[in-house]
């Protein structure tokens, strides 16, 4: 019974970073922009969170800094995608490469250790508070996208930008800010990893979660509420892998494969039902 309760708590905690990144990406993609750089954004968020939290002596400031850096990098991706009409997939891959390089470099340059830094106790934040925040963000995002005028403008930009533009929606601005806010949530998920969930920053702390979040977006059919369900499914296998390890059921390496195998099976099962925004990944230009 107690073990089951631990598994449940672990599932919810493991779901948080995936949920944050997925909800952010849903916002970005609903506006018509693809950002596959979530993994890099998460890594950078985890690193910046510990760095600033350590120096400022406050985890909350660390979280805020990680979020802000994600927002800035999102503005960069948004500018490339929206105004320069660069390739969004290439820019996303670049973000992943840059994040992996910067964090591995930064950990060494700042703390002079190779690829591993324990988060100091004064930089930790309350895991339950961040968990509640993540679920609240998902709920709020659903409300904004489906129940407000702003949500209509965002969805119109992703479905039919020409029509949206013709009725006075500034497609460029909507896409830019949706991309920035979406990216900031991925970085927030990274800060959660290093400041609350794992209490450490490593050069591969995100461990594929940015890509699992991409899978969750498809699983959720671009609906933030369904993304909660998806994140819990992935979180369950993540938690299960540690749980099985504690009880010595299977080798460590085998249990670590579980979340990835589960992700593959889930995406293979749901595709076909999923329907992406129609103008997804297509740059918009004024006639």
């Amino acid at each position, binding site marked *: 019974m107690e073990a089951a309760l631990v598994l449940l708590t672990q599932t919810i905690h493991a779901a948080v970073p995936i949920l944050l990144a997925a909800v952010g990406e849903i916002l970005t993609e609903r506006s018509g922009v693809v950002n596959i750089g979530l993994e890099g954004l998460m890594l950078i968020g985890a690193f910046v969170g510990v760095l600033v939290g350590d120096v400022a002596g406050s985890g909350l400031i660390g979280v805020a800094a990680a979020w802000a850096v994600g927002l800035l990098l999102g503005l960069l991706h948004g500018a*490339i995608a929206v105004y320069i009409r660069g390739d969004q997939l290439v820019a996303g891959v670049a973000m992943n490469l*840059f994040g992996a*390089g910067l964090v591995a*470099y930064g950990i060494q340059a700042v703390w002079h250790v190779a690829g591993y830094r324990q988060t100091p106790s004064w930089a930790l934040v309350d895991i339950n508070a961040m968990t509640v925040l993540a679920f609240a963000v998902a709920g709020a995002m659903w409300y904004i996208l489906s129940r407000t005028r702003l949500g209509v403008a965002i969805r119109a930009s992703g479905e039919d930008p020409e029509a949206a533009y013709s009725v006075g929606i500034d497609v460029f601005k909507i896409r830019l800010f949706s991309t920035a806010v979406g990216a900031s949530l991925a970085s927030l998920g990274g800060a959660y990893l290093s400041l609350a969930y794992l209490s450490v920053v490593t*050069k591969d702390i995100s461990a594929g979660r940015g*890509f699992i979040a991409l899978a969750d977006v498809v699983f959720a059919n671009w609906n933030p509420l369904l993304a909660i369900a998806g994140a819990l499914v992935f979180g369950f296998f993540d938690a299960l892998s540690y749980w099985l390890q504690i009880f010595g059921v299977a080798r460590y390496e085998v249990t670590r494969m579980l979340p*990835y195998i589960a992700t593959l099976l889930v*995406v293979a099962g749901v595709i076909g039902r999923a329907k992406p925004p129609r103008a997804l990944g297509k740059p918009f230009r004024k006639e």
Partner: protein
Amino acid sequence: MRGFLDSLLSLAVAIAVGAVVAYISGYNPLLVYYSMFVVPFTDVVYVTSALATATPIILTGLTFALGLKAGLFNIGAEGQTYMGALGAVIASYLAASALALPLSFVIGISLAVAWAMVPALLKAYRGVNEVVSTIMMNWIAYWLVIMEASTTFSNPMQPSETIKMPPSARLTPLVPGTSLTAGFFVAVAAALLVYWLLERSVIGYELTAAGLNPVAARIAGIPQSRVVIYSFLLGGVTSGVAGVLQVAAMPPSYSLATNLANVYGLGLDGITAAMLGRGNPLGTLLAALFLGLMEEGARHMQALAMTPFEFVKVLQGIMILVIAVRMLELWRRR
């Protein structure tokens, strides 16, 4: 030519931004770049070491280039390289003679291709996005190969690595005292072969047609499923060879590190090479040689400028970001 200029421009931007990053973190940018770009040319051992470093990057770069040609984002070279290396280790376990070398290629390439076929089939028949599926396969390979390397195939004398290639099956340095083996020429030949395949063969024509315009290709009788499978199959072969060479042509250890140190990150380097090379196999070859030079230089930078090796990865990330901006001409045609 235009693409080449774009790549040079992206290098210039990366060097400028990198200088700021290095300066902020307390390193001397001049010494960083001197040790990275000048020192490697000062000794023939360094030059050959750069070529050896470039070898697997050429091959994993071809994997990504083959995908790009067909309009696919195949990020799976990383895991396929692990599987290729595992194949070489299995061959060393099975055969104690020179036979282990051909056997390495057979088993290594088979495992890598099998690994590539999962995302290919999921894409062809279930429409699963290849970015997600290849990354998942990479992580599954990561844990699988770590497990096998540290259990069944571990070296009882040296717990940090697997059993070694039998001495008679090794590809040893062509010039004693350097690390340049025949593996380098295998990689160059692979690049030429892929170039020929894409430019002159029917398969290459179909891949390119589907990459430029999938709808038109389908109407012309080229099914998307065939394109995906061929592209991933060929990509699996080159990455598999990369993995085999990282064991069979890797002096002095001729084994796989249990933490995968001699294969880790090669797939990502390949993506960088293919993007810098604009998805062209010969461009990828050139770019991989350049990346090999940068990484050899980064080792000297570590020693001379006390800068972490990963600085080179920061530079590469910035380069690709600039490429994304400049690649619009090439990609708007999709």
